[in-house]
C-alpha cells in the first residue's frame, strides 16, 4: 500500500526563476531523501531529481508550482524543497 501523496503549492519568488543554479539546488536537495518528488507547472510534470526536465518547465518569477511527494521521507523532502522556494534560492 503506497503512502498517500503529499502535495504542496509553492511560488517561484526569485527574480531569475527556476534557472540552472536554482535547479541544481532542487536536484541536490531532492536526492538527499528516500522519496520521489514530482514538480508540476500546470499539467507539465517532471521529476525533482532531473535537472534538464526541471529547467524545461520554464518556471519564471511569480509562477506557481506544485510539489508532490511520495515514499518514506516524502514529508521531509517536500518540506526541504519548499524551504528552497521560500528562501528564494538564497538570491535577491
Amino acid at each position, binding site marked *: 500500500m503506497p503512502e498517500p501523496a503529499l502535495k504542496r503549492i509553492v511560488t517561484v519568488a526569485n*527574480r*531569475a*526563476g*527556476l*534557472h*540552472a*543554479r536554482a*535547479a*541544481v539546488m532542487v*536536484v*541536490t536537495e531532492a536526492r538527499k531523501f528516500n522519496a520521489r518528488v514530482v514538480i508540476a507547472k500546470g499539467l507539465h510534470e517532471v521529476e525533482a531529481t*532531473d*535537472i*534538464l*526536465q526541471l*529547467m*524545461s518547465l*520554464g*518556471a*519564471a*518569477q511569480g509562477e506557481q508550482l506544485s510539489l508532490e511527494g511520495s515514499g518514506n521521507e516524502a514529508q521531509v523532502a517536500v518540506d526541504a524543497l519548499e524551504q528552497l522556494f521560500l528562501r528564494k534560492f538564497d538570491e535577491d
Partner: protein
Amino acid sequence: MQKLQGIPVSPGIAIGEAMVMDNEGFRIPRRFVARDAVDDELDRLAKAIEAASVEISGHRDAIAQELGEKYAAIFDAHLQMLQDARLRSELEEMVRHRHYSSEYAVSRTLRHYSQVFQRLDSAHLAERAADIFDIEKRLLRHLLGHRREGIAHLTSPVLVLAHNLTPSETANLDRRFVLGFVTEIGGPSSHTAIVAEALEIPAIVGTGPFLADVSGGELVIIDGNKGFVILQPDEETLAHYRQEVEANRSTAVRLEALRDLPATTADGVQISLYGNIEFPYEVTHCVDRGAEGIGLYRTEFLYLGSEIEPTEDVHYQAYSQVLQAMGDKPVTIRTFDLGADKVPHLPQPEDERNPCLGLRSIRLALRHLTMFRTQLRAILRASVLGNLQVMFPLVSTLLELRQAKMVLADVMEDLDEHGIEFNRGLPVGMMVEVPAAVIMIDRFVEEVDFLSIGTNDLIQYTLAVDRSNKDVVGLYNPADPAVLRLIAMAIDAADKKAVPITMCGQMSGNPIHTMLLLGLGLRQFSVAPAALPEIKNICRRVTLAECKEVTHRVATMENARDITNYLREELKRRVPAFGNE
C-alpha cells in the same frame, strides 16, 4: 549528382568539402556507425561524458577557490546536466537503436533541449540555452579531439552552405579556409554577397531549400559565374570544373602583369581606377592590383557585426588602418548606408513596409544625429592621416545635402573647441543614386567637391525593380536606355563644372560596360578589387574614338537587351581575351 540554380553574387569557381551551418552554428554531419561497432561507440560516448565531467569539476573547484562558491554554481549546473540520467539514456538510445555516431547523437539531443529552453517565455531561462551549447561543445570537443570545426576555427578549406549567414558569422569566419558560400535565401545586396566579394570567393544566394539533403563533408562545386551549386558532382563535371579553375588561374597570372602599368587608353587618355572596399584588409587586394586609391569605402560592417553601436574609436581604428595602408592615395569614405531595420541598436521603425523607400542611409543619419556625429568625428579625426574624402549616400534633395554638410560643420566646430586636429578642407561629395538627384544634378554640382554614381540603387529606383525579386529581376539592367541617359546627364553636368565624378556601382566593374562608360565621358572607375585588372586591360586596349562610336550607336537603340548584346559583341571584337565567358 544534384544541380541547383541560385543567384550568382560573387564570381569564381570553388571545389571542396561542404560545411553546413544551421541556426546554431555548424552542423555535425549525420553519420552512422556499423551494427557491430555500437558497443565501441557507446564506450566512446561514456568516456567523453566522463572526461567532460572531470574537466567541469576541475573548473568548478578552481573557480570556487578563486572567486567563491557562488560563482562556481554554474559549473555545478553543467555537471548535473551532463550527468542527467535521462539525457544519458536518450543519448545511448540513439547510438544503440538508431546507430547514430556519438557526435551526431550529442548534437541532436542537446540541440533539442536548447530549443526547448529558447522557447521558454522567461528571458532568464531562455538564456540557459547557452549552457546547453556549452555542454554540447565540451562533449564534442572530447569526441572529436582536435577535429572540432566551427566556422571561426576551421582547419581545412570548406565551402560554407547555410540557410542564411548573419553579418557576425561572416565577419568572424576564418578567411584562410572558406572557399565559397551558398545560402538558401538572400538577394544580390545581401551581406553574404558583399562579404564574398570582399573575400574574392564565389558565392551564390537564393537557391531555395536544399540543406535537408546535405549532411556536411560531401564534395560540392560552386560556380559563382553562372549561379550553379553542384552537390556530389560526377567525374565528368568535376573534370570540367577543374579545368576551368586552371584556366582562370592562368588568366589571373597574365592580368597581374598589368599591375604597374597606367590605365591609359590606346590613344593616350588617362583613366583613374580605384577600388571598392568594405573591410580594412581589402586594402591589400587594391594595392596588389595597382589601384590608385579607394573610391568607395563602405562602413556598414562596423554596424552590422555587433549588437551595440560602434564607438568613435572603433570607427577611427578602422579608418586609420585603411589610410595608413594607402599612404597619400585618396580614400573616399561613405557614411553609413543602412536601413533602420538593419541596425540592431536602433528602435525598430514602425512603418517600414517598404525599406527601399524608407528610413535608410542619409535619411537615417539625419534622424539619428548622435550616431551620425560619432561617425563624422571619427572621419574628421582620421582626415589628418592621409588623403581622405567623405561622401553621403542616397541624397535625394538639396536640403538633405545641406543638412548633412551642416552636421559636418557642426562636428568640426566641436573638434575645434576641443583642440582636436582635422583637415578643414576635407572634400565632401555625394552618391548619385536617386533619379531625383540626377534630375537636379546641375544644382547639386554647385555644392559638392565630387560625385560618385551608385548604379545599383540608381537602376533600382529608375526602373522600379527589386532585383532580389525573381519575377521582375529580368527588368533590372544597367544598360537600360533610361539609366544610360541619367548617367550621361550626371557626367555632363559634372564635367561642365569640372567636378570630379566617379562610378562605384557594380556596373563600373563589369567589362561589358567599360567602353560605353568611357564613351559617355567617365574617367574614374571604382570597382571591386578583383575587377581592377580586367577593367585596366580594356582601357589600355581601346581608343576613346572607338568608345565614342559605341556610345553613339547605343544612343540609337531602344532596349536594354539589344544594347547588352551589342556591347558584348563589341567587347569580344576589341578585347578577345574576355569574349569567352
